[in-house]
């Protein structure tokens, strides 16, 4: 058996790889579904914004289908939507992801998951990627989500984006300290 290659930090200069259209703008023109912008600030353990983080996102399209060969369900694919985003934080630690609200997808043991995004957080000072999720506060199924149910009840709110405006949801990422974001072992 081959042994895994270890993780190393992304460092402060990952952005030189950017310049591709999928960065931060997940939903191209013509994407079906409800368009939303997800905004947030990444904070460190001292409550200071992290200006050199990258938040990567992965999600199903509005019909609940992943643009991936292992999702063979008979649901429509959306040519304008690959489902992947890569959003760097700015000098104030803020990121922004222009996307659509995903549909529901299957969960463990015949359950159905609430609409959600997977998020991966990379930064200088993060040696191994941190994985978290984002749910929507005005989505009724969020309360029944089978994965959210595995999170201690008093910490679930760290994964639920609040609707701030018609099309804007906010979810801050707190790497450490009070209201520390829940990160997952996947």
């Amino acid at each position, binding site marked *: 058996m*081959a042994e895994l290659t*270890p*993780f190393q*930090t*992304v460092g402060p200069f*990952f952005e030189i790889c950017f310049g591709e259209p999928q960065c931060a703008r997940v939903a191209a023109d013509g994407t079906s579904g409800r368009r939303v912008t997800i905004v947030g600030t990444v904070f460190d*353990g001292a409550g200071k914004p992290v200006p050199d983080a990258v938040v990567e996102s992965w999600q199903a399209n509005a019909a609940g289908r992943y643009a991936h060969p292992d999702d063979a369900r008979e649901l429509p694919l959306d040519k304008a939507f690959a489902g992947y985003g890569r959003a760097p934080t700015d000098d104030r630690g803020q990121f922004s992801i222009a996307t659509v609200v995903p549909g529901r997808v299957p969960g463990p043991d015949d359950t159905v*998951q609430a609409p959600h995004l997977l998020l991966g957080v990379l930064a200088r000072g993060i040696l191994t990627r941190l994985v978290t999720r984002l749910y929507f506060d005005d989505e009724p199924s969020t309360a029944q989500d089978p994965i959210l149910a595995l999170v201690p009840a008093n910490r679930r709110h760290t994964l639920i984006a609040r609707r701030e405006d018609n099309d804007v949801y906010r979810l801050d990422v707190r790497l450490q300290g009070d209201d520390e*974001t829940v*990160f997952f072992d996947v």
Partner: protein
Amino acid sequence: MPVGSYRRPRDDVHPPRDFAGYRSTALRHPRQPLVLIPQTLSELTGPVFGHDSVRAGDEDLTAHGPGAPIGERIIVEGRVIDEDGRPVRDSLVEVWQANAAGRYAHRADRHDAPLDPNFAGAGRALTDAEGRYRFLSIKPGAYPWLNHSNAWRPAHIHFSLWGPSFITRLVTQMYFPGDPLLALDPIYNSVPDPRGRERLLAKFDLSLTKPEYALGYHFDIVLRGRHATPMEAQRG
């Protein structure tokens, strides 16, 4: 356990989230334990990058400016495989690095070393049917950083890979054999297992060298493998 799920890494494979020698981890690591969750369709799928995400020439970092960059030309070649030795095909590999003087073409790099107008320092490639990738570049320089007094990063090339799913994602750094700075580098030494650290070292490979043109280094990358399917388990 869902069909197609991935094995979880041993505890000593990846660096700990809090590593005293690397100062920036102090305020950037969660103190709460990670919450263990099953791998659902969300985790088992991930972004797919087709041939339209890589342009011809993206793998040649020496050809991105009006002229040739300064530095020692190197070929970096290797395979991306999973823990079972299967090739990871048609998969995006991104690299980025400092120039020969140890300076990144990035606004946040304040190191007092020259920029090279002929070196942007980023490349991408898709693996072939055997999982093979290849880059042509120049050897990056070491550079100072502020982690501790007189701290220098050993020469390295950053690698970013996705593999077949969201949870096979790997971001790592490739180092050069025999670099005296390796023993002093907290990022390299954050990997707990000495054999794991060795897997971050490229191997000098004379057979990859292009005579009178470039030196050759070999660097294989191993991503997470899947649990055996019931049928494979029966076959032993």
